[in-house]
Structure formats: structure tokens, C-alpha cells
């Protein structure tokens, strides 16, 4: 029997980019199902359109950059970007909105910087922010939970997406999100808001539908943690900071209260952000210590913008701001290499 001569390392990891991305996409599934259940199939529609546009833009950009189109398309990173963008957009977003968002995500934020691994900013969040500051009206018309069962038909939904027809009774179908309501509370006490506003009807702590969507994303995130796709440092420090800050400023629910910790943790895009966006390996800080700082920064910024800023939700802005800071954080949180003594206050020079 001939002995195989193989040099070390003898144990290989099975993770490749496409496997990781496939797992992330899989982990999005419960969240997407919850969204569909509570807000109708608008998000599904978004996601399908997003995937189509993102893959096409990616293919065109790769072709122009003379890269191997099939190889880079099959790493699924564009699909994950498309998924995140599609989830973040309001349901039944018009097709041109999705096309512009996909263009900025894939072409401007990713391929112009050199493709996957070279992008300093999270592509999906760049697309989302460009849309948010360019088309504030289209980007803030969320459907109220359970719109589907109230009779928002398939045909009407598709007409909105492709022909730009507003729903025949648009006002009946659009509503503010819980974070909107709390922000523009017209000087009502929180407990009154919970009783009067329909977005809190039948809800336990963070708005009808929203709490379930966030719980589903939390579940997906825990699956990814279990599969060791990312470490706990960034998401937990982000959620922890958000919880601590919102508890500090809660003040028992007066009319100037920015909302309870549970509202902040389980409303808007908190869980999606914490487990699917903050953990992006390309744009976050690298070391574990750096990731804690990075997560704390995002959590603090989210709360500051939600409580005192102009926008009701702030995941995208906070993530982009901390993406800026990630190289800086890396510089100051370089782990000590084995055998080297760390000089106090000075990052080791190579």
C-alpha cells in the first residue's frame, strides 16, 4: 500500500464563500416568511426583483471588468445583497426603485471598488440609503400588518410594482411603522399610543407583525451563530448597547420617551441589522475586540438617530458610519501576535 504524501494542514475547513452565503440566505428564510405572513407577498416580490436586477448588474459589471462571470456569480454574494435589500425595502416597491437600489448596491458600492472583499461599505445598505435620501415618499410607505388579509389583491400589488399605479385606495393600505408612531407621538403618553394606534393592536411589545418578523430574524441569526458563520461579538455588543441606552432613556413611558427597550430591540430592522448586516465580514472590524467596539458604535448610533435624529429607523446610516470607522478601529485593536510584547498605547508596527 502506497502511503499518500500530503503536507499539512491535514484538516480542511469546508466553508467556502458560496457555502457561507448559501447559509446566510437560508437563515433569512424565517424572516422572509414572517414578513410575507404579516405584510403580504410584497417583500417576496421585492426580493425576486432584487435578485434579478442584482445578478444582471453583477454579470454586466464583471463582464466589463473582464472577470470570470460564472465563477463570481456563483459565490452567491450578489444574491445575499439582493435578499437584504429586498427585505429592507417597503413591500411592493416600484420596479424602478429596486433597479436603482440594485445598481447602487452592486455597481457603485461593490464592483467600482473592486468586487467582493474590497468594498469598504455594505453594498445593500448603500443601495438602501441612496434610495432613502432620494425617494423619501416611496421609501416610507409601509403597508400595515395583515394588509393581505384585508383584501390587497395580487393584481393590485403587481400593478403598483410595474405600472406605478397607486393602490386605488392607497391611504387605506399604507401606514406608519411603530417607530414612526413613537417618534411623532403628538405628545401622547406611550401607554395611550399602545392602546390607540392600530400598529400596536394585538401586539405584545413592539408592534403588530414587527415583533414576529424580528423574532424570526433573531432565530435565523442564532442558526448562523450555531453554524459558526460569525462570532457573537458584533451582534451582541450592538444589541446590548441599544438595550442599555434605551433602558436608560426610557423614563417610564412619558410623552417624550423614545420608547421601551423591547420596542427598540424588536421593531424596525434591529434584528435583521444585528445578525445579517453588522456581521458582514468584509465591512466590519476584523479582530474580536474590534468587533465589540464596532458593535457598540452601531448600537449607540442607532439609538441616537432613532431618539433624536430625523429618521425613525437608523440601521443603515449607523452601519455605514461605522463602516467608515472600521479600518480605524482595526488599527487600534490589533491583537498581540504570539511571542510579541505589546507596547502600551502604541499599535505594533510591522
Amino acid at each position, binding site marked *: 500500500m502506497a502511503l499518500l504524501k500530503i503536507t499539512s494542514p491535514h484538516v480542511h475547513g469546508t466553508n467556502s464563500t458560496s457555502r457561507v452565503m448559501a447559509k446566510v440566505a437560508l437563515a433569512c428564510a424565517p424572516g422572509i416568511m414572517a414578513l410575507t405572513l404579516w405584510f403580504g407577498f410584497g417583500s417576496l416580490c421585492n426580493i425576486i426583483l432584487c435578485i434579478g436586477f442584482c445578478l444582471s448588474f453583477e454579470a454586466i459589471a464583471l463582464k466589463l471588468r473582464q472577470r470570470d462571470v460564472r465563477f463570481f456569480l456563483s459565490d452567491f454574494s450578489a444574491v445575499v445583497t439582493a435578499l437584504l435589500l429586498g427585505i429592507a425595502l417597503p413591500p411592493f416597491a416600484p420596479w424602478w426603485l429596486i433597479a*436603482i437600489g440594485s445598481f447602487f448596491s452592486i455597481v*457603485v458600492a461593490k464592483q467600482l471598488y473592486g468586487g467582493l472583499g474590497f468594498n469598504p461599505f455594505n453594498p445593500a445598505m448603500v443601495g438602501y440609503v*441612496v434610495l432613502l*435620501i*432620494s*425617494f*423619501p415618499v416611496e421609501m416610507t410607505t409601509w403597508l400595515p400588518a395583515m394588509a393581505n388579509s384585508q383584501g390587497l389583491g395580487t393584481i393590485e400589488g403587481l400593478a403598483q410594482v410595474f405600472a406605478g399605479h397607486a393602490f386605488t385606495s392607497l391611504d387605506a393600505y399604507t401606514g406608519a411603522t411603530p417607530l414612526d408612531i413613537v417618534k411623532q407621538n403628538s405628545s401622547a403618553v406611550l401607554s395611550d399610543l399602545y392602546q390607540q394606534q392600530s400598529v400596536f393592536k394585538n401586539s405584545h411589545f413592539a408592534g403588530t407583525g414587527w415583533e414576529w418578523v424580528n423574532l424570526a430574524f433573531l432565530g435565523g441569526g442564532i442558526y448562523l451563530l450555531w453554524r459558526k458563520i460569525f462570532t457573537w461579538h458584533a451582534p451582541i455588543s450592538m444589541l446590548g448597547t441599544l438595550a442599555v441606552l434605551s433602558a436608560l432613556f426610557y423614563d417610564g413611558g412619558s410623552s417624550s420617551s423614545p420608547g421601551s427597550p423591547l420596542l427598540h430591540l424588536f421593531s424596525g430592522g434591529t434584528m435583521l441589522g444585528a445578525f445579517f448586516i453588522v456581521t458582514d465580514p468584509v465591512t466590519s472590524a476584523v479582530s474580536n475586540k474590534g468587533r465589540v467596539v464596532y458593535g457598540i458604535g452601531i448600537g449607540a448610533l442607532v439609538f441616537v438617530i432613532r431618539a433624536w435624529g430625523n429618521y425613525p429607523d437608523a440601521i443603515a446610516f449607523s452601519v455605514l458610519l461605522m463602516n467608515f470607522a472600521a479600518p480605524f478601529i482595526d488599527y487600534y485593536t490589533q491583537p498581540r501576535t504570539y511571542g510579541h510584547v505589546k507596547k502600551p498605547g502604541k499599535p505594533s508596527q510591522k
Partner: protein
Amino acid sequence: MNQYQEISLNGIWKNNPALVQLLGLCPLLAVTGSFVNAMGLGLATMVVLIGSNVSVSIIRNAVSDAIKLPAFVMIIASFTTCTELLMQAFTYELYQILGIFIPLIVTNCSILGRADAFASKNKILPSALDGFMMGLGFLLVLLLIGGIREIIGNGTLFANMHLLFGEAAKNWTLHIFGEQYKGFLVAVLPPGAFLVAGLLIALKNITDAKIQQRLAQNKVKVAKGSKRVRTTGQIA
């Protein structure tokens, strides 16, 4: 290529203040939200640039090195104040729109840069031409960015041109995508300025690379082993 042609080529293309030297980025990014704003500020900068270049060139032998820079800044500031007062008198609305960016022309590095690098070492006529060509290069880039941002952001071109050209220009507005165009706000907001400016710089670099490539191709290749010919005396 004589001196004047070289100065012109430098100002508009090879050493363009906005695309190559990257000077004066503050007004370049801040006021190019529309064509008319870009034109107003571009013309004002050009006037100051010509004036300061000529004046600096006149006094170039009278000021010592020690007080050179303060003197240049004084000259530039005077011309800027003149321009500001002129705009206040003749294009008051545009003056109000451009606001702080007119007095800020003083701090436009390309003006002090040209005064120091060119006008203080050259005669009056070349200095005047240099000021004009550098100003023209800056103005053209401003107009290009302003036009692109206005078209993408608002779907119009030449809107509000009456601020600069009087009542006759009131109906110059072109609706590129029809009246229903919703506007793509990000182009008018600050990020749009960075994106458009960056893309223009990229475009210029690509064009230069293409030109270089073509020049290299057209060069006659010298065959290996061929010998040099030495010529002596004059060839008539």
C-alpha cells in the same frame, strides 16, 4: 507647440485645476447642484483668477520673497470683493443663492497656486492667458458637473438661467425626461457631487490612457540591429 498653446492645453486638459490638481474642490462640490449656479461661480472664479494673475505678474519684481504670500492673498481678496460687489449689483438673486461661496473664492487654492507657481515668475501676457485658461478649465468642469447633476437630479437643464442672463433667458429651461420626472435627489445632494466628480476624473484618466496607448502604437518601431545615422552639418 509655442508657449501660449502650451499654457492653454495645460489649463484646459493636462493640468486642469479641478480634474488633475484637485484644487478648489469646496466650491466644485458645493455649488454644482445646477447649471446656473455652476456658471455663476465658475465665471466669478475666472474673473478673480485673471485679475490676480495679471496684478501679481505686474508686481512680481517689487515684492520680496518674505512678504510674497500675504501680498498675493491681499490682491486675491481685493478682486474677490470686487466680484462680490459686482454680483450683488447685477445678479442679486444668484448672489444670494451662492452665498458664502463667493467670498470663499479667496481660499480657492487654485488661485493662490497659479499666482505663486506661474504669475510670480512670468510676464504679464502669459500670466493673463494662464489665468484665463485655468479659469476656463475650472469653469468647464463646473458646468459639466452642474449640468449632469441638474439633469439627473431634477430632469431639467438651464433652469433659472434668467438669474444670470436676464428676462430673455426665462424660458430656456429644458425638460430632458418630460415634466413628470420625479427627480433623483441624491444627484443634487452632496454625495452626487462626489460621485459625478469622481466619475469625471475616472473618465479623464481613461481618455489619457487611451491616447497614450494610441501614441505608443503609432510610434515607428525600430528594427533590431538597425544602426544609427549620424548627421553632421546643416540640412537645408
